[in-house]
């Protein structure tokens, strides 16, 4: 994997929030990662461990307190304005609950094409064609293009979320608990879809999840976070050989069907 191009790297990124009473809270403490092309990097840990804060910092939704974020060797830590907007073409995000991430008054085709319209002029006809094409890629029927989000099931909505993340053909997709709100069988089909898209398009994923079992199956590498720190990094298929007590505790918390 090391021979491959490093797409995204962070160098000791920290994010410190100042609370109302003036105390400082370190949500992310010197997190360094490198993400290669076509790779899935899993990020696990309990709520409040700083995984979402970290990816939000990468996305530029809030500035990093210290450290550097590099995209293809270029420093993107403090991008602003037009340059920050252009970055969105390269990194897209899928959220936990697309029901709250979508505008309920927009049709699915407009939801999918919204990122495209932020960057170029597209006619309604062309937008619909692009939307239908993407719906096919995420294994949904073309009729869905004309529906509204509330008419779809959770699994269908998450597929639309994936379609929307794909329309700008980004190199990196960040999945923030993208399958956590779904039933196991639907989760299975979404994970398969993400893996298929990766094989076909070579996108890289940062996959945030609190389910260790799922993350181990979908990730090439897994990073375990606790209280803002990365405590351990392991290959996805070798989680059982973990050393850190926190990873062991996470492993022991997984309920398996076949013991």
């Amino acid at each position: 994997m090391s021979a491959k191009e490093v797409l995204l790297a962070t160098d000791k990124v920290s994010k410190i929030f100042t609370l109302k009473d003036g105390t400082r809270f370190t949500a992310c403490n010197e997190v360094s990662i490198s993400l290669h092309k076509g790779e899935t990097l899993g990020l696990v840990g309990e709520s409040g461990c700083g995984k979402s804060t970290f990816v939000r910092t990468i996305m530029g939704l809030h500035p990093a307190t210290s450290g550097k974020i590099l995209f293809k060797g270029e420093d993107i830590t403090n991008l602003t304005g037009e340059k920050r907007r252009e970055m969105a073409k390269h990194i897209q995000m899928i959220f936990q609950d697309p029901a709250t991430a979508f505008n309920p008054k927009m049709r699915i085709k407009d939801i999918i094409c919204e990122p495209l319209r932020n960057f170029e002029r597209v006619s309604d006809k062309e937008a619909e064609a692009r939307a239908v094409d993407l719906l096919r890629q995420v294994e949904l029927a073309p009729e869905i293009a004309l529906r509204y989000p509330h008419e779809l099931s959770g699994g269908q909505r998450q597929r639309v979320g994936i379609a929307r993340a794909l329309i700008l053909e980004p190199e990196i997709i960040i999945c923030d608990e993208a399958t956590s709100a779904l039933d196991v069988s639907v989760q299975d089909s979404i994970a398969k879809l993400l893996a298929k898209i990766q094989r076909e398009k070579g996108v890289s994923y940062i996959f945030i999840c609190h389910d260790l079992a799922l993350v181990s199956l979908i990730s090439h590498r897994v990073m375990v976070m606790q209280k803002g720190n990365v405590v351990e990094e392991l290959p996805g298929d070798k989680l059982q050989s973990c050393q850190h007590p926190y990873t062991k505790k996470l492993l022991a918390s997984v309920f398996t069907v076949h013991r």
Partner: protein
Amino acid sequence: MLLNVKELAIDYQGKNTVANVNFDLSAGEIMAIVGESGSGKTSVIRAILGCLSGTGQVSAGEINFNGRDIAHLSNKEWLAIRGKDMAMIFQDSGNMLNPVQTIGRQFVEYIQLHSKLSHSEAVKKACGLLARMNLPDPARVMDSYAFELSGGMRQRVGIAMALTFSPQLLLADEPTSALDVTTQAQIVDELMQVVHEAGSAMIIVTHNIGVAAHMADKIMVMAGGKVVEYGKTDEIIKNPQAEYTRTLLGSVPEIGGQRYVS
């Protein structure tokens, strides 16, 4: 036999949604209902508790609780049963708790509603119950508002309240689904322990078959408002008969299982 459900059917807006549900439960037994969202599993336990949402109603069948059919009780008759003989734990107890009252105030109100305890006795009982759920510093929890507690703590409060009167039947609707894996593991074990101590029977609704296999004596698998499979946990897990059960079991991610990526 504590609970016996016969040919239960549930309608929403006059349209049949759940049909032909049959099962029985003895004291001390734990049953899990598993299935996808929309399979009707929550409707079944809500029907047992007599609180189907919206236009839902039991259209056929019997729900025998201690030999008495409770499918069509009046609201007044329910008051004596619900919360005392039968209690429910919700997915997110934070939504069940009153946001503008302290935990202590609503807990004490609930205890005094169903018993003749004095205020100080009720406070003592509540603190004891909170302590039993491994909540550190129960007195502080009593003085807190729901939003001041973490999800795991709120869920422990919800379970403590449900167990107040050692109900004969405990219903749990996805009690651990909103929690982190580590908290989920703790709460599942605590829940099993206190249920056994109280000698209650429990029905747990979950989509996590791992949790169901760990907790339950028997499992009922539901899909599209119908019971697909019903039997002892071991038999369902080791030798599933229905195709749907097999799909469901196959989609549970397991460490060291079939990987999505190479």
